[in-house]
């Protein structure tokens, strides 16, 4: 512990290290990773010695790499790039050209990292970022191990960050995990899910466990149901190649939305340690009631957007998008009713919906409380609304609570009112980008906001039967069309209507 840090930071301090990015010429590096590292450096959050080595196939000099990254950072950084800061930062950027499967490239990488340690004071700490497609994990990890880069020398560390998707099903996830574990232990492995880096996702734990008023009510006695929605107006854009093989369930539900579900359903952890939190999260994934074929038909609705309009502009249907098969059966919308079979939330259905080309973009969790007994007010006329606690993840992050109030007047007319908290209104300081927070955590050795192996595998174990049902030859659940710009197929509304409920209006 550095005594001079006392009182200066309430989080663990990142250590000087070299970040080696595999896939250094890719979109993720340009749009997110280098801008995030630059912003951290500009805000004084990083030790000055932090160094970045871009590893990719294309031949390029350090200077060319720096120039390219400078242009991208100027375009994508959340704060304006200042020349004097960039000039110093650029000196910490290096490029290492090699094929991913070329062992010699890793040997020379090891030599280069040693040199950087000596010259820049990175202390032998290495953070390997796999910003590549999963089929490249194996050669990279294998070669890192052969070059001895998976093990750090005494007093230093080596960690690996793995980007999603963590497989396409349980078998492939296990295989990927096996590949990574061949070289890196679980405590060296950081599986990134940028949703967890969002301020409001982290605030779910604070809201639930730092406010005494919610936790006593957070159970099946008082909760009616929970809804989790991730809506976007965008279509498949230029991701058809990936999306055709993934679909909404794999792309969003298996990772992001199940992570949110865990945060909203988990028991209080014993402490804020990474494993304490992840232990509680994994219990929730394990408690998700598995679905039989019959249950899938009853509890899951798949949809695909057809031609329609977004913000008044006509947009094509999914099957007419570039790169999409004309007879594609990939779902762009999915709605699920899931059950968590634990003591807290038994009998509290959780409805999840995610979709593309919906009328509005927004991700939120709404917690619907049971109605107050109608024995006093308006017992014969108007029905009282539920209290609803809404946690808005994006955009306009915040929390609102709907409650009942008496309308001014001589009669007892009751109307719902909304108490609204907006992050942007109350706190002037902008939240850091999710990647900034997560990179900082990985450099500090804090894995709390990263998915653990068992979480990922359990999530696939829940998702796999759904995917299998959709490709089964018999009794295949339907794929329902919905016009772009609508809130999904009618069948999704019916899913809730059957329970006497309706989707929350965003």
């Amino acid at each position: 512990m550095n005594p001079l840090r006392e009182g200066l930071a309430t989080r663990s301090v990142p250590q000087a290290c070299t970040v080696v990015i595999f896939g250094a010429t890719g979109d993720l590096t340009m749009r997110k990773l280098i801008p995030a590292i630059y912003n951290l450096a500009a805000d004084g959050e990083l030790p000055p010695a932090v160094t970045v080595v871009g590893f990719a196939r294309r031949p390029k000099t350090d200077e060319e790499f720096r120039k390219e990254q400078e242009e991208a950072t100027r375009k994508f950084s959340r704060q304006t790039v200042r020349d004097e800061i960039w000039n110093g930062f650029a000196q910490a950027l290096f490029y290492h050209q090699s094929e991913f499967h070329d062992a010699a490239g890793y040997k020379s990488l090891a030599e280069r990292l040693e040199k950087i340690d000596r010259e820049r004071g990175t202390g032998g700490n290495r953070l390997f970022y796999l910003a590549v497609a999963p089929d490249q994990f194996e050669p990279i990890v294998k070669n890192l191990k052969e070059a001895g880069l998976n093990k750090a020398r005494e007093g230093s560390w080596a960690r690996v960050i793995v980007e999603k998707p963590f497989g396409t099903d349980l078998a492939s996830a296990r295989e990927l995990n096996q590949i990574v574990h061949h070289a890196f232990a679980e405590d060296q492995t950081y599986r990134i899910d940028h949703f967890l880096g969002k301020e409001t996702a982290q605030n779910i734990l604070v809201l639930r466990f730092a406010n005494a008023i919610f936790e006593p009510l957070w159970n099946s006695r008082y909760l009616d149901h929970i809804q989790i929605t991730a809506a976007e107006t965008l279509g498949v854009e230029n991701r058809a190649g990936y999306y055709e093989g993934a679909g909404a369930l794999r792309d969003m539900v298996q990772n992001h939305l199940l992570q949110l579900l865990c945060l909203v359903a988990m028991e209080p952890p014993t402490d804020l340690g990474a494993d304490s939190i992840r232990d509680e999260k994994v219990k929730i994934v394990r408690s998700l009631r598995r679905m039989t074929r019959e249950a899938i038909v009853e509890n899951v609705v798949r949809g695909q957007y057809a031609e329609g309009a977004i913000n008044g502009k006509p947009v094509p249907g999914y099957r007419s998008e570039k790169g999409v098969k004309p007879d594609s059966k990939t779902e762009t919308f999915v709605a699920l009713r899931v059950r968590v079979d634990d003591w807290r939330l038994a009998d509290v259905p959780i409805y999840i919906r995610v979709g593309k080309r919906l009328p509005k973009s927004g991700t939120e969790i709404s917690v619907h409380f049971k109605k107050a007994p109608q024995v006093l007010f308006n017992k014969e006329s108007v029905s009282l609304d539920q209290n609803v606690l809404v946690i808005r993840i994006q955009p306009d992050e915040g929390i609102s609570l709907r409650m009942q109030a008496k309308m001014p007047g001589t009669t007892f007319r009751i109307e719902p009112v909304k108490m609204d908290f907006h992050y942007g209104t109350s706190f002037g300081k902008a939240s850091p980008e999710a990647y900034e927070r997560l990179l900082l955590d990985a450099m500090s050795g804090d894995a709390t906001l990263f998915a653990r192996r068992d979480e990922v595998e359990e999530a696939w174990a829940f998702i796999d039967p759904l995917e299998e049902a959709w490709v089964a030859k018999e009794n295949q659940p339907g794929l329902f069309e919905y016009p772009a710009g609508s809130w999904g197929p009618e069948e999704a509304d019916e899913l809730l209507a059957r329970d006497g409920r309706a989707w929350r209006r965003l």
Partner: protein
Amino acid sequence: MPVEIGKIDRELKKLWAEAGGAMTRASLINLAIYSEAPGSLPQNTEIIFKITEDHACRAIVIGANPGAPENRVEAWISAHCHVSRAGSKQICSEQLSFLLEGPSAKLLPNIVFSQLDSDLPLYLWWQGEFHHPMDAQLWAWVDRVIYDSQAWSNFGTQLGRVEAAQAEAKQRIVLCDLNWTRLVQFRLALAQFFDHPSSHHRFNEIESVEIDFAPGYRSTAMLLAGWLASQLRWTLEKDSNGNSLVFRNQAAREIRVNSQEKAGEPISRVGLKCNSIEYRVTHAPKADLLKVTVEGSNAERKCLMPAGSNDPVRLMSEELMRGGPHSVYLRSMNAVRNLL
């Protein structure tokens, strides 16, 4: 808008009603500013306007002149609106301003208490010197008292008054010294040199510390020396002429701390020498970045880090953002208390 004190609440409601929902009122704290300096009201209004950009609050700005022969009490209300970073919404904080002259200056606690936004903490920024006796009634309601010890004529007397009031108050008050806040970026820059566990042995190798401070900022330099001494467990051995100190670390090694006056930023240079290595942080005049250098026998490493600013708005924003119990401040200040 001038208002009668008894009608402030009603006028505030009217003010927000007139906005017709086009503005959002936000408040996280009650921030009271007290000053006896002539012309302080417009100056502090300007400061509040800037502070509310990042820290939504109910501001209670008091300009007092207890020595005035005539009794005079006047009040105004106003709103400071900024476009939210999240969108195009106008986010507004309200300000209540009071001019208290003559005996009515003693109404301070009554005025502050009756205008608080309920349930929100009360931060009192006291500009200038504290009087004797301190009003215990006022202090009993304050959560954080903010002052700038740099401007105090006698540190011991002033702090004694604060501590006496703190002891008398029925609740715990956090002492926030803007002179300490001035040091945040220097402390961060110095701390990062020793983040890697392999550099921790260097703490015991520190031989000397050099601090350059601007005229009037000797106390800032002393606080910095106090911070190093208290965090690294040095004991003060000798104070030859006030600017040249000798400490001894736990291994009985001598550490010389020399500070010298030099025009420029409040603290313009700090150098730590450990055997063959020199750690240096410099702040060029008006620069918003610190130059951070490690110079060893083999190489020199440089980088830039954010520098603080001596502007009261920036200091207050930094203070409001960081919060915390300031226990390190108390330790640091106590380590050099007699030198301040």
